[in-house]
């Protein structure tokens, strides 16, 4: 019986990922907002913070070039929390018991949910890149750079999605998952997302930004846009995304065992 179950793993993942994507596609309001809001914020900030580019030492002439990296982070975050809430809903409502009674493996459930979150992350990333290109942002690292940018954005999405899975499994409550949104909001603001790290005047703030992993994720994406190929920015970004993925995937598998109880 167990042999049969694992042989079916790809098809189980397919079924569950399909379901996760169906959830996203059938609740367009939940998708439109996470994709549109970062763009609105970008538009407002580009005008509102244009003065920043006049500050001596600012790396770009246009704030848009500088800040384009931010929507990718916000999009990844929204996709992750959305996926987390989806899973939390299954736990709260008892659907997970229904799944537990089938030969479905826990790994398939995780993979399926991640598939859904990843789908949303990819769609968002492609849209942000296209919007940036349409608005005239030049990718300093060229076409290859744009592809690497998408790869990095997707890696970050994946890492955040693993986090979303973990808190959903740990807390089992949709509202609690949503409670993490402000936390990430804070993390994003206390980083170099909106202002270059080396130009931050307040020492304590600059210290926080320096220790904040989000800074390096943003700087990684940004470097492809404004600098070109900068290993010093790309390696930390990919590294943090990979490390976070491994960490939260491990924690998720452990947490899954308590949620998917069955003998």
């Amino acid at each position: 019986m167990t042999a049969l179950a694992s042989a079916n793993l790809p098809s189980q993942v397919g079924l569950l990922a399909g379901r996760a994507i169906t959830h996203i596609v059938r609740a367009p309001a939940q998708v439109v907002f996470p994709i549109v809001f970062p763009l609105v914020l970008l538009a407002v900030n580009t005008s509102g913070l244009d003065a920043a580019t006049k500050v001596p030492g600012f790396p770009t002439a246009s704030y848009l070039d500088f800040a384009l990296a931010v929507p990718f982070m916000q999009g990844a975050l929204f996709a992750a929390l959305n996926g987390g809430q989806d899973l939390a809903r299954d736990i709260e409502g008892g659907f997970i018991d229904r799944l537990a009674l089938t030969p479905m493996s826990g790994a398939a459930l995780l993979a399926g949910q991640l598939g859904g979150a990843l789908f949303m992350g990819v769609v968002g990333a492609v849209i942000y890149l296209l919007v940036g290109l349409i608005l005239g942002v030049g990718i300093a690292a060229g076409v290859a750079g744009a592809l690497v940018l998408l790869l990095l954005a997707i890696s970050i999405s994946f890492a955040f999605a693993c986090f979303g899975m973990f808190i959903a499994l740990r807390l089992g409550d949709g509202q609690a998952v949503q409670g993490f949104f402000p936390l990430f909001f804070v993390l994003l603001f206390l980083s170099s997302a909106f202002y270059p790290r080396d130009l931050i005047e307040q020492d304590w703030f600059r210290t926080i930004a320096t220790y904040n992993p989000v800074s390096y994720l943003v700087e990684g994406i940004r470097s492809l846009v404004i600098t070109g190929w900068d290993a010093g920015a790309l390696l930390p970004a990919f590294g943090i995304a990979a490390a976070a993925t491994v960490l939260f995937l491990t924690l998720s598998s452990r947490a899954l065992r308590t949620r998917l109880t069955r003998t």
Partner: protein
Amino acid sequence: MSAFARTRSVAGAVAWRGIHNAFTNPAFLLPSMLFPLFFFVAFAGGLSGLQNAPDFDYPAGYTSFQFGFVCIQAAAFGGVFTGFAIAADFEFGFARRLMLAAPNRGGIVIGYMLSAMARAAVVIAVVFAAGMASGMQLDGSAGDLLGLLALALAVSAVSTLLAAGIAMRLRSMQAAPVMQMPVFILLFLAPVYVPLNLIAGWVHDVARLNPFTAFLEASRGFVAGEPDKIAISVACLAGLFAVTALWARSGLRSAERAG
């Protein structure tokens, strides 16, 4: 009891409940306290380099510049959070109890408004303490600060009436984003990070027409001891008050009709 006395007692009761709930329930208290504090810290801390941009003329320093913003933001969002409380009251049936018990329903809305204003005052005091503790430069006199407080309370009242009108029409927590978005957008299509003269592009054009720009400039004027844009702020607030009061009242009628 005269009609006025009745209204007063209803408003008092509702206001007391709102204040009591806001300050004894951490789920209510924290967002309204932390949100403004957070913006204060993030903007004053992270973006202070902006004061080095050419033509950035604000005599009292960037921290004070952001304090002026945060006072208005706290007031505006306090109104939104009170709107959430009203929507929740409707969703969980408490509002019906209030409407049955209170002879004068207008008093209920006034009560909510008063509790929002009280909450705004406390939050601003907390942010003020935080700012002073971090060495914020305060050039305004006691009179200026009172003016600032009055301005913030007025913004709070208007924001509450707007949110209340929405909450009473939608009568459920689904109304939350509908209440939040307009205020957020109004607040951010204004000179948040830099003075108006340094904003570029279409946002500049919108901000010139946005009443919140006047409120922010007046607020910052008080902090810097150079009161500015007071007349226009008062005029805008009076106008907005009239409009939102009517909006809230018709919202109340809609809620009454729905039973």
